């Protein structure tokens, strides 16, 4: 029989501290769907996704009720679409539409994988595919897109970086009536992972098996609460407490992932232990950092606090799951975290500090609104900086910025729901035009030569 403390702790985590399974994501290979024409391929893609994931909403609902843990999102990730439509890249939008239709049919919230991997070079069909992204994101609702422009092994493809600056701008322009919402569904990666269950950057890597279940767990509120309980602890004790908490959260994720995989006839992929905030108060990574002793996130000391948090979360998670993967760490999406929003509004949290934070946390510059007149070159330069951090440090980095059309510093964008709201924060006005226009490849760092 369990003791009171353990049982009530679990219930408290769910009821008061926002413990949840953030996402159950089914990864589906679309490679068997390739047909002679785009139209036939699109039809097969739609049928495959609808068939494989048909029970995902039902099964996650049952699991949530049986185990008493909310499962917030049900999602699907697919093979990077640029590979599926290589022979007919000009008609890639048909595949995008089929995937969006499938997502609506299934009742899932997002489907990721309208993606291309161009970290070393960009074939002509890949360039044409990437050029379809703005239009496709404007015309679909639930489809997410990502492009990998660099890796520690291959370097940074600066031609792709330049192109992505333009693509982000076009995406914002085509969704100007919704504050540039399309950009919230578009991520530019360095060292993209193949088993990430989180959006907008999820895709199903070609090294994965046919159908897998990847689960993302969350719980910034649980960690914050655990830290609150030991206000005078030194940092070693704090790290231990975070590890123990991360362990418990991950174990819940592992249980749900295995059971979901069994019931959905898929393989168990990975558990991604990420502290993913929501705009709700008490579900914020920024508030954890402030609980650790910062007056406001973004001030001096923020990077050190985040580094410790991120590492402790990973250590607890690795111990708890037989397969940890995805991004695993702390997320710092500005618009989705009430503490980050408030710090950005006060002007304490700026783009340069956010960039430093991305060197020690699990992802990158995420859900950040910048002025609508920010040039494509500047966005490319932001992407290049972020990719450089990822490449040199052997970690995943990403850029999801929203150049908010018609808006300037001090204005706000509002996407509602889990995507939240964000104040527009300034970028440097000095040009990086000449650097971006050089093109070519930033060579891989010396420490990539390990063979």
């Amino acid at each position, binding site marked *: 029989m369990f003791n009171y403390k353990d049982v009530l702790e679990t219930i408290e985590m769910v009821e008061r501290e926002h413990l949840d399974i953030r996402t159950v994501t089914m990864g589906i290979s679309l490679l068997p769907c390739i047909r002679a024409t785009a139209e036939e391929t699109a039809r097969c893609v739609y049928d495959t996704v609808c068939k494989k994931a048909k029970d995902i909403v039902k099964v996650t609902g049952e699991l949530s*009720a049986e185990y008493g843990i909310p499962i917030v999102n049900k999602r699907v990730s697919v093979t990077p679409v640029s590979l599926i439509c290589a022979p007919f890249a000009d008609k890639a939008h048909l595949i995008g539409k089929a995937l969006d239709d499938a997502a609506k049919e299934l009742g899932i919230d997002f489907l990721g994988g309208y993606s291309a991997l161009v970290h070393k070079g960009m074939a002509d069909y890949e360039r044409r595919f990437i050029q379809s992204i703005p239009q496709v994101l404007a015309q679909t609702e639930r489809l997410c897109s990502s492009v990998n422009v660099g890796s520690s092994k291959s370097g940074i493809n600066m031609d792709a970086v330049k192109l992505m600056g333009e693509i982000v701008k076009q995406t914002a322009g085509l969704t100007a009536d919704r504050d540039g919402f399309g950009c919230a569904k578009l991520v530019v990666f360095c060292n993209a992972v193949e088993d990430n269950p989180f959006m907008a950057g999820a895709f199903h890597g070609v090294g994965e098996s046919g159908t897998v279940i990847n689960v993302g767990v969350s719980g910034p509120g649980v960690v914050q609460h655990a830290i609150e309980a030991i206000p005078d602890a030194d940092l070693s004790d704090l790290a231990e407490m975070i590890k123990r908490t991360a362990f418990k959260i991950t174990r819940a994720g592992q249980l749900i992932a295995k059971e979901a995989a069994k019931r959905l006839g898929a393989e168990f992929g990975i558990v991604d232990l990420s502290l993913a905030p929501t705009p709700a108060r008490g579900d914020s990574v920024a508030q954890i950092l402030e609980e650790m002793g910062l007056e406001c996130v973004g001030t001096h000391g923020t990077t050190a606090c985040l580094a410790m948090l991120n590492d402790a979360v990973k250590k607890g998670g690795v111990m708890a799951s037989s397969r940890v993967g995805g991004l695993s760490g702390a997320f710092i999406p500005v618009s989705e975290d009430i503490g980050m929003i408030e710090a950005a509004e006060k002007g304490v949290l700026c783009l340069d500090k956010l960039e430093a934070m991305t060197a020690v946390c699990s992802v990158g510059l995420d859900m950040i609104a910048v002025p609508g007149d920010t040039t494509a070159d500047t966005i490319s330069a932001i992407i290049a900086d972020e990719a450089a951090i990822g490449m040199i440090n052997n970690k995943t980095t990403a850029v999801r910025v929203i150049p908010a059309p018609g808006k300037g510093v001090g204005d706000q964008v509002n996407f509602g729901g889990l995507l939240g709201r964000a104040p527009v924060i300034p970028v440097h006005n000095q040009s990086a035009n000449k650097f971006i226009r050089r093109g070519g490849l930033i060579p891989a760092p010396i420490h990539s030569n390990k063979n």
Partner: protein
Amino acid sequence: MRAVVTVVGKDKTGIISKVSTFLAERNVNILDISQTIMDEYFAMIMMVDLSRASVELAPLAEECRAMGEKIGMSIHIQHEDIFNAMHSV
């Protein structure tokens, strides 16, 4: 299949009677029961067996929630594995 029922709320008379009757009506067998009062709050944990229950666990969880609302307590029923997973190495 075994599950854990937790009942938490302000103490009053007849809680155990109401909850156990509710479970018996659904053929849920109580294997172990433990109850205490913490700061005027009633807390009860029951280990139950659902192998002959007339209701599946998922709908039963919803019925428990509704029953809790009716008697002014918070009642949960969860698969035992969630506690095994989170609280044992």
